[in-house]
């Protein structure tokens, strides 16, 4: 296996080089155009498109056979695929436009009908005398390894076309995907732009048939951009990351199938993409799960610390702040109170006093007073003046009273001046 790995990495085989170049070019193009497909909320249309290429491939083969030509020239078959793929897509759009059938049903109907028709045609082709139709099922499952140099060049050219159009029409596609109505009102030819976008999707799908097959081609249109979304909130970055992920998964898939000769490259490509997707979902720098958990965790921690300080402060208003008194103030999860107390002592906010009671340190006292003051102001505000200025309430503060910003608190103070009683609302510690 090491020998195979070395052979692959050194790219000695001409064939490996060809397949790698072709697959990577396809992966990159799919990731790029998939970004817009995903943002246009048409991911499933890509799946339907993939499936509806089958009758075209078989029909093209049949026509070539009837004309006595060698039926298996790739561009010819792919032209058939493109036509029937486009027909499938148009059918979906027509059903959507002229009937009250919902989107998902329209997609499911077209997908299965076209695929069923395709399977029928392929079966018919296979029964032709001397038909030599063995290659057709490559389009269903993909056979990356059968790629020739000419195929790879073809894919490469198509990818360049896709990249050039996406770069040139980046701004127009963005507008189309984000706000079709505004684009239309501004005089942009929405239909034309939509047509160009979907034609590019058809092009990439058809090109990918050979690499990953029509069942799986949608994976490379959708998974890379979906993964890329976890890494950035900017469309330019998302498009570049999606391109890279598509390219990388295709390359890794080809490598795996070169090293383990029995594995089907198409499926491995999709699995690699899925792996990168899960990685992005967990680690993503913008919306990854880890990041979110970390944010939530630190927010909960801060909240718990503030709860404790407030509870201690309130206990001290009427007596000693013992653990029992704190428990009485508010419910704590088992162990939480002890953990939080020792954490706050370490942070220099609390000191253990005599008889198991807690005392606030200087900083702790200032912090606790600020919190209690904020909290009580907020309570008063909700009770009496919630109708005064809802616009000035930070969205998050609706849920967590602890994140009132100082400016707002000053405003509240002015509003609530009438009801302010020294004993009820502690003075601002900084004044």
């Amino acid at each position, binding site marked *: 296996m090491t020998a195979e790995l070395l052979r692959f990495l050194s790219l000695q085989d001409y064939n490996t080089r060809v397949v790698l170049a072709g697959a990577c070019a396809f992966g990159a193009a799919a990731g790029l155009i998939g970004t817009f497909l995903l943002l246009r909320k048409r991911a499933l249309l890509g799946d339907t498109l993939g499936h509806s290429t089958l009758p075209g491939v078989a029909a093209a083969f049949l026509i070539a056979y009837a004309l006595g030509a060698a039926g298996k020239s790739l561009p010819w078959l792919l032209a058939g695929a493109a036509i029937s793929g486009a027909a499938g897509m148009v059918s979906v759009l027509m059903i959507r436009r002229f009937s009250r059938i919902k989107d998902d049903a329209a997609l499911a109907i077209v997908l299965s009908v076209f695929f069923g028709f395709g399977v029928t045609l392929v079966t018919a082709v296979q029964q032709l005398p001397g038909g030599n139709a063995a290659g057709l099922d490559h389009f269903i499952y993909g056979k990356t390894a059968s790629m020739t140099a000419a195929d790879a060049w073809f894919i490469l050219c198509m990818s360049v076309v896709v990249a050039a159009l996406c770069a040139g029409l*980046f*701004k*127009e596609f*963005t507008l189309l995907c*984000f*706000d079709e109505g505004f684009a239309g*009102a501004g*005089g942009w030819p929405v239909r034309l732009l939509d047509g160009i976008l979907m034609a590019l999707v058809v092009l990439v799908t058809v090109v990918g048939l050979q690499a990953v097959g029509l069942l799986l081609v949608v994976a490379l249109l959708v998974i890379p951009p979906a993964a890329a979304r976890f890494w950035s909130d900017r469309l330019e970055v*998302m498009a570049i990351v999606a391109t890279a992920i598509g390219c990388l998964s295709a390359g890794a898939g080809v490598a795996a199938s070169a090293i383990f000769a029995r594995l089907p490259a198409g499926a491995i490509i999709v699995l690699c993409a899925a792996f990168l997707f899960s990685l992005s979902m967990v680690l993503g720098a913008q919306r990854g799960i880890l990041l979110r958990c970390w944010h939530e965790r630190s927010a909960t921690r801060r909240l718990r610390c503030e709860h404790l300080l407030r509870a201690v402060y309130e206990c001290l208003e009427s007596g000693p702040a013992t653990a029992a008194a704190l428990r009485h103030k508010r419910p704590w999860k088992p162990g939480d109170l002890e953990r939080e107390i020792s954490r706050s002592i370490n942070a220099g906010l609390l000191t253990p006093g005599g008889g198991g009671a807690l005392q606030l340190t200087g900083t702790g006292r200032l912090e606790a007073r600020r919190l209690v003051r904020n909290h009580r102001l907020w309570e008063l505000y909700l009770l009496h003046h919630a109708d005064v200025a809802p*616009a000035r309430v930070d969205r998050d503060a609706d849920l967590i009273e602890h994140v009132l910003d100082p400016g707002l608190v000053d405003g509240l103070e002015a509003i609530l001046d009438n009801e302010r009683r020294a004993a009820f609302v502690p003075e601002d510690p900084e004044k």
Partner: protein
Amino acid sequence: MIPLAIRSLNVAYHRKLVLWDADVTIRAGRTTAIVGPNGAGKSTLLKAALGLIPMASGEALFFEKPLGAARSRVAYVPQRESVDWDFPVSARDVVAMGLYRKIGWCLPVRRAHRELAEAALADVGLADFSRRQISQLSGGQQQRVFLARALAQQADLYLMDEPFASVDAATEQAIQEVLRRLKNEGRTVVCVHHDLDTVSEYFDDVVLLNMRVVAQGPVNHVFSRENLRKTYGGRLTLLDEAVADLSRRGVPGSLQ
């Protein structure tokens, strides 16, 4: 010059007629509210005039020309709910979309455009939010981003679809401010509006619409109890609320 003249506009969805021979004339340099019950075809009127949905018959003239010849003078603010706010763009990117026509086909957004976009954001009080991803804005802020996008277009006629719908008080104030400024600059504003309470406060003219145009003209002439009853039909609770409010505000000519 009349910024927008709609003549016998008919619009149908499937077999149902939504707008019926609507004739609307918008006067230049004024703010106009289009008011009517749900399903009255208020948004449809704007969309059909802008060619976003097909007209069954009729025409819409912008500055006495067909829309195609007056595009650059018209700005549209769609309903906030019409787009996905999870889209990976920043507030500034959205506002820059208002400049796309000026930038032209295939050319990128350049620094000068970004600066214009930031200026438009500052006009609606969102200067500090220009780099924010749009899902991290509150609903009212999103509405203001849409408004800023239209402001960046520097148009003469602004068509806004429910700009005041479910926004916070700060946004309401900011939009009101913008309307006033646009009017002072001699521009024309048309808003689909749902809140009867504020019509007379925010707008000069009103178009009362319920599938057909019930009445149109200056607010203090047209926005009367009688006309509201014609527009809203038997929905008395709503009507009574509005009337109560009118009397409280003392709108001239509205309650005699």
